[in-house]
């Protein structure tokens, strides 16, 4: 078979995934599909059969890639970012009934007591951001971030709330933000997955793998969990005894035979398969290479607090919470990995750190004892990440997002005991206002956005919905949140849902 024929066959019969991709924008045919199509017509390389090939965004992007740090369980904004002296005045007094009327809580029953902020606050940097003593390193980089104090959600259980943040629906079955972004923009390095997930804290986040699933998008867009133990990507390593050289030779034989099969069948899907096997072979080197943080110089490791090769006992414990140690570098290692992945062209890196659900009802989940440990685990790592991205010139077009799935109540969780007990100070889930922060590509620096009332209960200025956040993140990446859609089951589905209530947060854009 002549080469020209091979190419044209590839060009007109693509993988199903790719065909589906042309449907972007539904019947209105968004710029995305057109551009991709015209690109193909202009004589794209055979690699264009790859559904992860980079695609031009719909709008001019401010950010090209994302590192999303999710603290699963939801940290208390009142101990980290929200300085509310009024709470101290009402400490252990009954919560005003107005806070409880018409509200549903996960665990609070009856009339709970107000709980003062448990840690000291100070203003930091030129912007004067309020940051508590639990985040001394963050305090130093606060000027680089935009802290949003008024995020609101309508889900008060972990799994549905996490799903809502990451997939736009509290129920299962929808694509995650990372999948949407990878679908819309592709990925620059075809030897690495476009959407990588890294976990720490010893447990999968409550929403499970659905949080990085592809939902109704083709499965090629689902997040690939890279692990620090065992194969970094499942089945990446050759079987024991079958070395790389031997693998090459099996692939050579395979290629030869598959090529013969293509010549017999004429099905270009066979050519795609040959290409995917070759890509797998390259990934066998590129993934472990990028995952190997031991090559980083000491000052970079120190910047994050990373320790190559460290395996925390908490990562495989039945109840990791009671084993948490402040100097556990698992999350720090993941932050450093995130930078390496981003640097190597990965589009979306999602970190989940579990263990932030501080109710105070059992050991290892208290605000007074566990929260400081968790903060210690992430504080240096997060500030290190921002500094490192900045010194490499990556912060300008990398969006960093930090937050949980909801916040925590100004009231202490009304357990049977009404007095404070060491190791059992806790707060329940709070949906009306909580803190997240963004930094990097297209985000204003040193901004505190939104204000809550004196208890940190409700926003009094600039309430920000999850939909707003999602719309804004997509917008920053050059994806028009209102038009970026995927036709499925009779709807042009969007991350922001069927209504246009999600608004781009112009106030936080640089």
């Amino acid at each position: 078979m002549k080469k020209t024929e091979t190419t044209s066959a590839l060009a007109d019969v693509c993988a199903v995934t790719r065909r589906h991709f042309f449907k972007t924008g539904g019947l209105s045919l968004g710029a995305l599909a057109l551009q991709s199509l015209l690109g193909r017509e202009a004589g794209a390389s055979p690699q264009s059969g790859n559904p992860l090939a980079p695609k031009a965004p719909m709008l001019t992007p401010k950010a090209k890639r994302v590192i999303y740090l999710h603290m699963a369980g939801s940290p208390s904004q009142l101990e980290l970012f929200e300085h509310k002296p009024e709470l101290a005045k009402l400490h252990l007094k009954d919560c005003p009934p107005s806070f409880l009327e018409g509200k549903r809580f996960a665990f609070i029953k009856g009339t709970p007591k107000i709980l003062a902020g448990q840690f000291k606050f100070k203003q930091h940097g030129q912007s004067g951001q309020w940051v508590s003593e639990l985040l001394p390193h963050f305090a130093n980089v606060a000027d680089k971030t935009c802290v949003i104090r008024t995020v609101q959600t309508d889900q008060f259980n972990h799994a549905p709330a996490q799903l809502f943040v990451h997939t736009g629906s509290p129920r299962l079955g929808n694509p995650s933000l990372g999948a949407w972004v990878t679908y819309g923009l592709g990925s620059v390095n075809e030897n690495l997955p476009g959407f990588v997930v890294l976990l720490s804290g010893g447990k999968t986040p409550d929403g499970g793998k659905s949080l990085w699933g592809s939902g109704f998008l083709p499965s090629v867009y689902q997040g690939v969990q890279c692990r620090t133990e065992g194969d970094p990507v499942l089945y990446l390593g050759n079987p024991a005894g079958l070395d790389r050289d031997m693998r090459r030779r099996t692939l050579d034989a395979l290629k030869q035979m598959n090529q013969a099969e293509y010549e017999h069948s004429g099905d270009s899907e066979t050519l795609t398969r040959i290409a995917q096997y070759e890509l797998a072979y390259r990934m066998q080197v590129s993934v472990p290479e990028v995952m190997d943080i031991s090559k980083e110089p000491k000052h970079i490791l120190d910047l994050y607090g990373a320790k190559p090769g460290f395996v925390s006992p908490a990562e495989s414990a039945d109840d990791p919470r009671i084993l948490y140690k402040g100097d556990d570098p698992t999350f720090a290692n993941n932050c450093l990995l995130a930078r390496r992945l981003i640097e190597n062209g990965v589009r979306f890196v999602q970190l989940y750190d579990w263990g932030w659900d501080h109710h105070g009802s059992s050991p290892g989940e208290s605000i007074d004892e566990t929260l400081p440990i968790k903060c210690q685990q992430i504080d240096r790592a997060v500030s290190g990440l921002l500094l490192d991205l900045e010194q490499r010139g990556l912060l300008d077009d990398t969006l960093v997002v930090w937050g949980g799935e909801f916040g925590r109540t100004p009231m202490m969780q009304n357990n049977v005991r009404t007095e404070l007990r060491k190791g059992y100070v806790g707060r329940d889930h709070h949906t009306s206002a909580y803190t997240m922060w963004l930094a990097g590509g297209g985000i204003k620096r040193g901004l505190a956005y939104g204000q809550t009332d004196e208890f940190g209960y409700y926003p009094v200025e600039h309430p920000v919905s999850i939909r707003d956040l999602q719309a804004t993140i997509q917008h920053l990446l050059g994806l028009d949140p209102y038009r970026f859609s995927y036709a499925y089951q009779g709807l042009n589905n969007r991350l922001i849902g069927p209504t246009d209530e999600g608004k781009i947060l112009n106030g936080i854009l640089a």
Partner: protein
Amino acid sequence: MKRHTAFCKRWSKLLLLVLAGLAPFSATVRSAAEPVRFGRDVLPILSANCFACHGPDEKNRKVGLRLDVEADAKAKRRSGVVIAPGEPQKSLLLARITSTDPDAVMPPPSAHKQLSPEQIEIIRRWIAEGASWGRHWSFEPVVRPALPAGQNAIDALVKTALAQKGLALRPTAAPHILARRLWLDLVGLPPTPEIADKFAADPSPAAYERMVDELLAKPQFGEHWARMWLDLARYADTKGYEKDLGRTIWPFRDWVVNALNADMPLDQFTTEQLAGDLLPKPADEKLAEQRLIATAFHRNTMTNDEGGTDNEEFRVAAVKDRVDTTVQVWMGLTMGCAKCHSHKYDPISHAEYYGFYALFNQTEDADLYTDVPVLELLTPKEQDERKYWQEHLQKLNRKLTELEDVASKASESGARQWRTLVAAEVLAKDGATLTAQTDGSVAASGKAPPEDTYVVTLTLPAGTHTALRLEALPEKLSSGQFGVGRNGGTSNFVLSELTAELVEAAGARPVTLTNARADFAQDKKPVAAAIDGDEKTGWSVNPRTHEAHTALFDFAAPLRLTAEAKLRVTLSQQAGDTMTLRRFRLATSDISSALLQPPTISPELRALHDELAAAYTAQAKFNDSLVRLPVMRELAADKQRVTKIHRRGSFLDLGDAVTPGVPAAFGALPAGAPLNRLGVAQWLVNRDNPLTPRVWANRIWARLFGVGIVETEEDFGALGSAPTNPALLDYLAAEYRDNGWSLKKLIRTIVLSDAYRQASEVTASVREADPRNLWQARGARFRLSAEAIRDQALAVSGLLSAKMGGPPVMPPQPAGLWRSTYNGKSWIDAEGEDRFRRGLYTYLKRTTPYPTMTTFDGGSGEVGQIRRIRTNTPLQALVTLNDPVYLEAAAGLARRMLLATTTADARAAQGLRLALIRPVRPGETAPLLALWKDAQQSFAAAPEKAEALLKTSRAQIPDGVSRNEFAAWIVTANTILNLDEFLTRN
């Protein structure tokens, strides 16, 4: 007109490119000669671009104009006529969609929608041709097309469509290929080369037909086709969400396999699953049980066991899931949108959604941890065992009553030493409700907080009081067993501290207690700990938590009262875990405390208590081992719910009550159908319902051809793709409905067609005219499903287990994948037969599905997966190259290659034959032989690598074969199992 043609040409090049394969225009690139058809051509444009503001959704309707209603669209309005039949130039619609004025153009710029010139032209032509109206194609009745006599109907219809493209059917595939195709399609497994050889020796139509019938009769048919149904049924072995705990639902999977094997007609298949519990109960117990098992279909919804969830919220979510899944699976429509507002594209209003929801909103299940209502499925042996335990416990309890009667008579003399005190006031500080009983005891009920403090104020008569007695009294639990504590597990209690105060007019005065003694105390929990002033220690009675216990405390100084007084006794219970007393009684004595001892229980009675406790434990263990299948059960008539509209889809924001019923656009319930799930089932399979047979026929076609006649299997509504061959779809739909809803007959009809049997090679002309094979210009060629890839590898390597049914199994998966929050269950790699069961039986955990299945586009069972969109990725290559399952298969295949023959060339050829079934082509083994020789040399140089590979692949080396040589054959077999042709059905 001329200008227009040029205009069209200019665009046509781009549009052809853009629209080929796009919904809904994939159907036809229309010639100008063919009249425009409303349902196929016009309605999709209007619904996608106009209905959002001028359609069924009354809330968002602009200027009161509806374009989904003919009378409205053609009515004379103040500004003119929107659609004037035959007069495009007078039609406002055309003026507005062609306007260049941003304020006038439709759709408005804010809608982010724009009509293409071709779409505008379709509208113009349609109006010019008279603007004849109609319904969306899929809502029109199914019409059996007129067919030429003497021809296979499918072939006639396919050929007609192909002829329009200048194509004809391709010749029949080579017999070996055809045999493999048929086996993989019908039973999901390859034939043996011998079977294919036999067919190749006589590839007559009669022999082919025989093979079809044999395959349809195989039990593996049900196993293979069940996967399709389980995808739709969102079947999984866990409950979903955060904890994602296991649930026993595999009997439903086995029901599906059996129903398919029995070729249960679709109407019965539908009715039993949606409403098996509402059918008249058959006399046959087994049949009645089967019908209930079928209803587990809609118990595949998720249950959220996360702490602090509102059960009603997730009950409602499950009911909505049932509504959406039902409509999606049977009618190919999405009702979900109407949860929050009237559907913008399809005729389903907000109120109609909840009217339909009301029919599903009457079942007992309520997002409970136990997944009740459940059906216990007992084997005859289990039935016997259950009976044994019931009788055995009855016997023991009778004996207990007798012995206790004797004991209580014996203790009457001792009882005179004590005076039971009347509780004047009882209070539990932390939540329990205390109630004074007529026998002087105090019982706790209601809330069961982890810790509680009971405060009892007693009236002490005048006189001397030397000691205080506390009796912990057992109460009967729901299990039938007795327990003294409120703890749900051991029924234990821990009395952290017992204190007493004398309450006098002047105030309360503590009374010191001393010399604590009890009839029994748990190891390291002595009764003295209850008066040691330390809340962290206490008196406890495990494991003897099923019998009464007595503790005595002396007053350090006997109380000598001249008048009646009050004694306040505080029982502090701070151990947590609801280690609190169920019922207790207090008494004092007036005789010398030195004479007072706690009663001793007879050894005989104590032994009986032990025996009882052991029996109850054994019974509980037995009960836990029983299969409890979640099923549907309708609420009793007096408990039925009133369904109200959920405003914006929120169950907390209820609107008006709705009238239960089905959406009007799809016809009423059949005459006599009840207003419940049974009625819904009858409505779905009613002869007049055009959607069910179309959706199902299309689904079956798609499984056999790789793509549906309607490509969007999940959407037969306004935004879905139009059928590529509407007459063919209607023929299949009519055939399915009229053949008695027999799936096997439908499949038989399809696979006996020449269209199905065509060779799959892609020729230049085919590639040009039907690149995606939407018109069946060639035989279908596509990658196998996740399960088939696994099953096939195990089959050709001789490892596959033929065992059918039963609990799901755990074939090897990488360690450390299961880390669900608050869920201790772990994955344990199966050994023996269960390691090699068909993929259908692999345990499916929703939040952590078996990784290799999802890599090949299998679902997680979280929502119904209507079709699997096939992908082709490097991660798939990594699975079949490196997953130990595939290495074990490679070792199995290598063994079979070696046992069959002796020369290297013949062995390589044997490997190819076993995998690909067809005869080996000349020269085909050369790359494999070269690889094998290479590998052998490498292993000779590094035998430790050969050893490692033999170990991972669990190789069983045939006699007389060297270890290095066998390792090299494993490498060769690993390559064969990754051939594109092997992974593909062609």
